[in-house]
């Protein structure tokens, strides 16, 4: 990039910002030569408001994503088999336990980062854990997790806290008051690197589509469904849409890293990824994460305008925050710490309580370290609130969704299929404990216990499954087969009838009833 024609966001470095000091190169000459660092990287500046908004949304989403991934933990290490993304890591890949625990920790760390608490401390371990979980096993086949891993590495070097840290000084009338103005700038080469990484991704993604199978629409038509498919069919058609995708990706590769073209790149990229959101592709939170990343592409003037308009609210926030400068700050910290632990205990993720206690100890240690370095009760409030928010997210994600239930169900199913019946029984018992109204746990546990000869407990579980899911024939057919196998033909026939009443379309139930009615041997249970 030509230095003479600097775009908005590309400023001459070194002389302005302390963190971008001119490099002093040692040479053979007696005098030291000052080498100016490239402005493309080290002159890149953004609005602090952009960093703040992007930080909250991106790390908030990553915290949620970490918790949603826990349902997949049982596949890791199942059957003692793993193939890592990097050959030598095969035996060092995550297991069910380590995967689940690490995702809990990462959800916590990302929430702290979203709140702007100890970002410089929490991001490196979060990035390392994320990278290990991704590179440790090919079970994670999402390419966007690779992208997030790269973004997180770069994010460790973004000065997320610089603008925020300037605020108290500004309130005290320190010279850095200029830094808190909406028009102030923060130099960040790492954010430029993230944008360049996006451009590289778009470039290669476009190149990969430059072939007949993509441009004639065959590939896209096999993948895109939902409202976006209807829209494409009703307008440009899939073949033209396929070509447009290449054009959009090439455009974004050229524009996304240049602030002067942000007014084109931001709406284009946001529309592109919003479109993907409605395309029915099974890509997890990818589209949402990309939309979050685009918060760093949106022109600075949008944030400056927003910050200017919200100046009044910001001032009011400062007044409220000042209330917590004294004892109230410590009360808030303590409340956050205690409530956080309660929420961790209430979350139904495996090991949530124990991980919660460890994180509590680490947080207390971090608080002590923070006080020793620079006393400040207001900061304690932030730590307490972030701590509480992290565990609130744990609890809310658990209670509002089925992650914990899926975890135990998948763990039980995986163990059962791979022949580890003891683990399967443990998983289903845990499932019954955390979700007593979930019929699958009772049904599968009943089946397992019947196989172990624990008929009384097994039948009780099957009866519970029948009660909770009266439209499912399977708990009835399993019991009918067991009754038939123990010479109780009349009861077996009655139970087989109940199975057909439960689900008249269940072929297995009808076949069972037919064979029992004829006095024949029942067909084997479907797996």
């Amino acid at each position, binding site marked *: 990039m030509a230095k003479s024609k600097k775009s908005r966001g590309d400023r001459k470095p070194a002389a302005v910002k302390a963190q971008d000091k001119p490099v002093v190169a040692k040479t053979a000459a007696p005098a030291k030569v000052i080498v100016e*660092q490239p402005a493309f990287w080290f002159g890149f500046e953004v609005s602090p408001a952009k960093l703040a908004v992007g930080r909250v949304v991106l790390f908030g989403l990553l915290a949620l994503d970490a918790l949603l991934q826990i349902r997949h933990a049982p596949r890791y290490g199942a059957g003692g*088999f793993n*193939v890592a993304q990097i050959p030598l890591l095969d035996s060092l890949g995550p297991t069910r336990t380590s995967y689940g625990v690490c995702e809990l920790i990462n959800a916590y760390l990302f929430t702290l980062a979203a709140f702007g608490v100890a970002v410089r401390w929490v991001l490196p371990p979060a990035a390392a854990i994320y990278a290990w979980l991704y590179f440790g096993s090919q079970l994670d086949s999402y390419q*966007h997790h690779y992208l997030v891993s790269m973004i997180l590495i770069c994010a460790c070097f973004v000065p997320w806290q610089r603008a925020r840290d300037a605020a108290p000084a500004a309130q005290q009338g320190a010279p850095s008051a200029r830094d808190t103005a909406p028009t102030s700038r923060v130099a960040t080469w790492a954010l430029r690197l993230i944008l360049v990484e996006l451009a590289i991704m778009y470039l290669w993604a476009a*190149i990969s589509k430059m072939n007949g*199978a*993509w441009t004639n629409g*065959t590939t896209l038509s096999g993948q895109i469904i939902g409202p976006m498919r209807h829209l494409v069919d009703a307008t440009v058609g899939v073949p033209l849409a396929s070509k447009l995708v290449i054009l959009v990706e090439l455009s974004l590769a050229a524009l996304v890293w240049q602030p002067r073209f942000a007014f084109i790149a931001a709406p284009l990229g946001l529309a592109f990824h919003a479109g993907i959101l409605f395309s029915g592709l099974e890509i997890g939170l990818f589209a949402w994460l990309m939309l979050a990343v685009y918060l760093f592409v949106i022109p600075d003037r949008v944030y400056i305008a927003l910050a200017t308009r919200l100046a009044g609210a910001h001032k009011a926030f400062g007044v409220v925050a000042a209330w917590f400068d004294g004892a109230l700050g410590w009360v808030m910290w303590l409340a956050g710490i205690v409530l956080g632990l309660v929420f961790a205990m209430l979350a139904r993720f495996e090991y949530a309580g124990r991980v919660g206690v460890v994180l509590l100890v680490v947080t207390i240690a971090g608080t002590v370290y923070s006080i020793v370095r620079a006393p400040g009760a207001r900061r304690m409030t932030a730590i307490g609130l972030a701590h509480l928010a992290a565990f609130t997210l744990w609890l809310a994600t658990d209670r509002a969704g089925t992650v914990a239930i899926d975890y135990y169900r998948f763990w039980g199913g995986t163990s059962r299929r791979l022949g580890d019946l003891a683990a399967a029984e443990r998983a289903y018992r845990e499932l019954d404990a955390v979700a007593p109204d979930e019929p699958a746990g009772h049904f599968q546990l009943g089946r397992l216990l019947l196989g172990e000869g624990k008929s009384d407990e097994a039948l009780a579980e099957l009866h519970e499954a029948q009660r909770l899911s009266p439209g499912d024939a399977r708990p009835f057919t399993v019991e009918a087969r067991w009754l038939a196998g123990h010479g109780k033909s009349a009861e077996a026939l009655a139970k087989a009838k109940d199975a057909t009443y439960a689900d008249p379309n269940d072929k297995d139930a009808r076949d069972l009833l037919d064979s029992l009615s004829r006095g024949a041997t029942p067909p084997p249970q479907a797996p």
Partner: protein
Amino acid sequence: MNTASAAIKSLRALLATWRGRFIAVFVLVQLLLPLHYYLGRRDPHDERFSWRMFSPMRMTHCTPHVTIDGAPFSLPSEFHEAWIELAERGRFVVVEAMAAKLCREHTGAEVELSLDCTYLDREPRTWGGYDMCRVPML
């Protein structure tokens, strides 16, 4: 000539700091790593690290067949379904690791593994079909 010397000067300035060296390595790796798929990767189905999202190759479907000493072997009894899905996408390293595990568990047996793959943009092809305890690569 001036442009070239300015570029060299700029590059030298970039490489003068640890931040600059980090940036240079990061960008170079990210730019060049996808080339590995096009130039040197033996497995056409393996699109990792190449940013080939939603590519035609992603639509590949393979059916793995395994026999141990001639008897059909059920993969779901040994491997999690997520690994089988990767095998069905034709991922060589996963299939080879599966075969290696079966060879370890059935010492002296003949573990024959084949992948019948259908593609969106090319003719169907069968990979493997021999004793993978003797030839461990597809």
